[in-house]
């Protein structure tokens, strides 16, 4: 069953097209990563999905219902975080959730305590939200999105402000929700590793346009392996690769590391050539094509993510 479907979804602000004819089709229970640079159109897309802003053109259907026509009914089945979650700073976390739970008026309610514990917050904590860390606010935001047991979670940069442990915990939680509760997750992010580790399928949005959709499994299968070497003289190695082996597709990384593409089968030859030219090779590894590489190729590395 299709959970989210957009057709030619477009949003213009004046002459600027923030989202440009985006077509998405996301299955129920799927974890969909929506990847893009800052300003690519991710948040605008989520805002349109939640009815916060109307599309200029096109349509959004959630569970087959048009968001513009049945917004109130659809929102009962959706939980979301849009940008940095805001809360009433003068209230505790529990009081904040109490407001949203009661407004939503949903009958399928998890208790506030259960939800807060699920995201690793203490429901009895008397701390006012204004004193929460960014990570705690993010967790509270997830808790708020989960309150009415939604079937779809729309999360805009959900790991913003979380420390590494928090990110791991969040990843675990999101996987659990998708698997055990068959929740559909639409996860926007500009952090490639986050999407790579969570999503079943990734859509890449660039300058408002959906430029690619690929399943992570497909990416792994399709992904050509590449070599990563760490040497003492990277500029000399680049010259040798070009002149001796005719290899031109490579990227220089930090700490004298070089990624060499479309040459994974030539690892022995490359190593031999480097040794012959007295280059010290500290590491030589065969690696699989990453989402990062795929993303940079598609967006031509125009902007850092």
């Amino acid at each position, binding site marked *: 069953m299709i959970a989210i479907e957009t057709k030619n979804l477009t949003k213009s602000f004046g002459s600027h097209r923030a989202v440009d004819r985006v077509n998405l089709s996301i299955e129920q229970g799927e974890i969909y990563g929506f990847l893009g640079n800052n300003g690519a159109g991710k948040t605008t897309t989520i805002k349109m999905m939640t009815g916060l802003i109307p599309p200029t053109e096109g349509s959004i259907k959630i569970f087959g219902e048009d968001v513009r026509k049945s917004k109130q009914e659809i*929102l009962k089945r959706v939980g979301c975080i849009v940008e940095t979650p*805001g809360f009433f700073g003068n*209230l505790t976390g529990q009081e904040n959730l109490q407001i949203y739970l009661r407004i939503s008026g949903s009958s399928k309610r998890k208790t506030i305590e259960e939800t807060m514990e699920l995201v690793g917050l203490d429901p009895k904590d008397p701390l006012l939200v204004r004193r929460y860390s960014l990570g705690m606010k993010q967790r509270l935001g997830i808790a708020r999105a989960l309150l009415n047991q939604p079937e779809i979670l729309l999360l805009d940069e959900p790991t913003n402000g979380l420390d590494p442990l928090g990110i791991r915990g969040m990843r675990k939680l999101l996987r659990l929700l998708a698997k055990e509760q068959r929740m559909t997750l639409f996860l926007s992010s500009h952090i490639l590793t986050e999407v790579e580790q969570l999503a079943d399928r990734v859509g890449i949005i660039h300058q408002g346009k959906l430029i690619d959709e690929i399943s992570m499994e497909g990416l792994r299968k399709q992904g050509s392996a590449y070599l990563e070497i760490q040497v003492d003289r990277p500029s000399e190695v680049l010259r040798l690769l070009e002149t001796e082996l005719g290899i031109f597709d490579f990227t220089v990384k930090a700490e004298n590391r070089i990624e060499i593409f479309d040459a994974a089968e030539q690892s022995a030859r490359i190593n031999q050539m480097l040794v012959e030219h007295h280059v010290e090779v500290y590491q030589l590894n065969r690696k699989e094509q990453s989402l990062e590489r795929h993303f940079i190729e598609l967006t031509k590395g125009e902007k850092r993510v």
Partner: protein
Amino acid sequence: MKQLQLEFLKIKRSPLILLSFLGISIVPLLMGVIFSKNVNGVDGTTFASFVEDVQMMNLMVMGIMMFGLITSYVFSKEFEENTLKSTLAIPVRRSRLLWDKFLVVFVWIMCLLVANVIEVVVISMIWGVEGLNLSSIATAFGMAIRDGLIFMPLLTPIVLVTLLVRRYVAGIVFSITVVVINVVALSSEVYYAYYPYTIPLVLAGPVPEEMSISVPISIMILLATGLVGAVGSVIYFQKISV
């Protein structure tokens, strides 16, 4: 009722609640201080005139400043705290949200006015102001409630300004402007009766016979002001992008 409770929960622990009660208590308190410094004590002041003086100050200065501040605070809070996106992503009608906030403002203002009368009564008891009896106290409470009701339509333009600017400060600037214009309007017989924010004075007190004022027109202007503010706010809030 449930929604209203939620709106009240949103302002829980707000320092403005205490500040507003302190603010509205200043006028009766100052008059109490004057009584204490006066050689002749209350100096002929009756309970009715004391109430009228406090009422006049509330209607012209303190009220509009304080009520404007409260209105702006309640309506800007979701913008200031960045909670509106989350609130609007929950199935709740936008017009309902506005109405509930307006009810919070109404209840808050009524509480302030009632507290104000209680303060006047207490000060009158302390200083032995003449004319203090159950009937005059009941009249004072009635006047306070009437003043609150008269004021409500005048708050809707403040709601609109707050929604447009999305900041707390909008109500303060608006209220200061209104008070300044009030002073100017009061010096004119014509403007005093037909400028929306001085109309409460026309409706609150007996109109001097020598002044040719049409009270029904004043009422219509008052209601029209309220209607324009309310309709403008609802239309704008329905279309607002967050």
